[in-house]
């Protein structure tokens, strides 16, 4: 069932571990596994520490050390353990991991760079902004995929998203050209960042427009972006776009939660009540 594959995220543990085993590790065991030599156990331990938000200094140290691991390599030269460690560190909120994550931006593995960028955005540390901007400095032409492929050279979506989240207004001139990128998904990422940096609703309205596009994956992406920026005027359009209810509910939840912060809970604004009424209709 397509829909449940999106919402049963708790079932998605790596390396085929069943969901029931998730919490059976102990913190000590996970750290020992991460520092051990079995690649499968190390990979799983890195994911596990992030999943269960184990932010003890020992866990963070072990994950930071894993960012420079050389032993776990894929046939294509990727670094699976580094990817998982970078993802986990974003969830643990310890700024000691920033320098290691910034070093990951120079890693050969696209997915390590992407994970590191996402985690730096989650940590809210602006010191990575110059490095992120350097990825965009060659202009739009340099961002096209190589002829005959769709693989981009850099994780531009994550870069644009991070610059928006980090409030990097100095990057506006570098972000704006992406509004015309041939990949719609990057146009959306740019619109999202532009809105976050300027609060100009015309950028958010571009995402609302995208909800009536004819490709489901793009409608899903626009919905997630609107949720991430908490754009209340999009709520009705999200509720009626053609996509899975479970994903609409997640986007509306994100909008609701932003609105509640503005309302100073437990008072509820008419906007918050409207969003919840729309959510009720999707259950």
């Amino acid at each position: 069932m397509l829909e449940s594959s999106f919402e049963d995220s708790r079932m998605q543990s790596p390396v085929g571990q069943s969901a029931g085993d998730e919490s059976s590790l102990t913190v000590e065991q996970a750290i020992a596994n991460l520092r051990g030599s079995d690649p499968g156990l190390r990979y799983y331990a890195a994911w596990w520490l992030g999943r269960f938000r184990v932010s003890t200094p020992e866990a963070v140290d072990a994950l930071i050390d894993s960012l420079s691991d050389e032993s776990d390599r894929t046939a294509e030269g990727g670094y699976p353990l580094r990817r998982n460690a970078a993802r986990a560190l974003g969830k643990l909120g310890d700024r000691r991991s920033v320098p290691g994550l910034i070093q990951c931006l120079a890693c050969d593995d696209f997915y390590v760079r992407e994970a590191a960028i996402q985690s730096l955005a989650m940590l809210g540390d602006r010191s990575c902004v110059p490095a992120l901007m350097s990825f965009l400095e060659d202009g739009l032409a340099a961002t096209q995929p190589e002829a005959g492929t769709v693989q981009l050279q850099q994780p531009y979506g994550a870069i644009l998203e991070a610059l928006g989240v980090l409030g990097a207004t100095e990057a506006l001139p570098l972000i704006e050209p992406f509004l015309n990128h041939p990949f719609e998904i990057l146009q959306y990422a740019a619109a999202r960042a532009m809105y976050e940096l300027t609060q100009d609703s015309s950028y958010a309205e571009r995402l609302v427009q995208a909800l009536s596009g004819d490709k489901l994956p793009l409608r899903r992406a626009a919905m997630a972006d609107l949720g991430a920026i908490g754009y209340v005027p999009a709520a009705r359009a999200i509720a009626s776009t053609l996509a899975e209810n479970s994903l609409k509910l997640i986007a509306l939840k994100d909008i609701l939660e932003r609105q509640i912060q503005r309302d100073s809970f437990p008072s509820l604004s008419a906007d918050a009540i409207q969003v919840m009424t729309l959510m009720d209709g999707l259950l």
Partner: protein
Amino acid sequence: MADSRLSLIQAVERADSSPRLIKAVRELAAARWQEAIPTLIAVLSYNNPGAAVAAVDGLVDLGEAAVPALLEQLDQHNYTARSWAIRALAGIGDPRGLVTLLGAATADFSPSVRRAAARGLGMMKWHWFPENLLEIAQEEALEALLFVAEHDEEWVVRYSAVVGLQSLADAIAASHPDWRSQILTYLERAMAHDQSWAVRARSCMAKQYLQEQTVAAASRPEEQASPLSATDWQHILTGLYDRKARERSVLAEGDPRRYQELALSLTSNL
């Protein structure tokens, strides 16, 4: 007329692409035609979420006419079709779906099914129930919803249980003010302690709604008489009985013998 309806069914059967199938199912659903039920049910097992959503909408619109076929679908071993059928039953609120929804809300594997079932428990057509069965059914729904609201690990399922509790509190306001207070107490706790801010906000909204309603002012929808037969109620009761017997055969309050006595009185009353 009959020809154009037949062609709507054929359009579903002959659709050779996902967009065509979805369009055909939507058109068939919009016709609100009881003879379309088997086709709409067949769509539930096509493994096409867009078409399944349209079919569920159509079945919910058709209401109780679709219930026997949906219950039959639940006996099949196609998990996906089963989960869509539960969602349709939740939307219809027919008492014949009650036992299925109780089980689905508390134990189904998929959050989207638990979510739909929890909402469905709140939207049950309580006014159809014979008086002596109503209390037991509502008590089961209350217990299941409180359990789900408190323990489900997915925010969206807890959110849905809060929506269900709000409707249930409305339905039992006059007959069981004590249960209504129990629901309000739960909502206050969830407002302060649920892990998810969305669930906290929905609990707050439910509490405000219930506090604004006075028992006397609670408006009743146009009450349509129950179309269910004595055999249907007997089935529902047997289902509740089995559920109770499995869960806690030793608790005095849930003693299944209470149900057996009721079963006897029910058949003689109807």
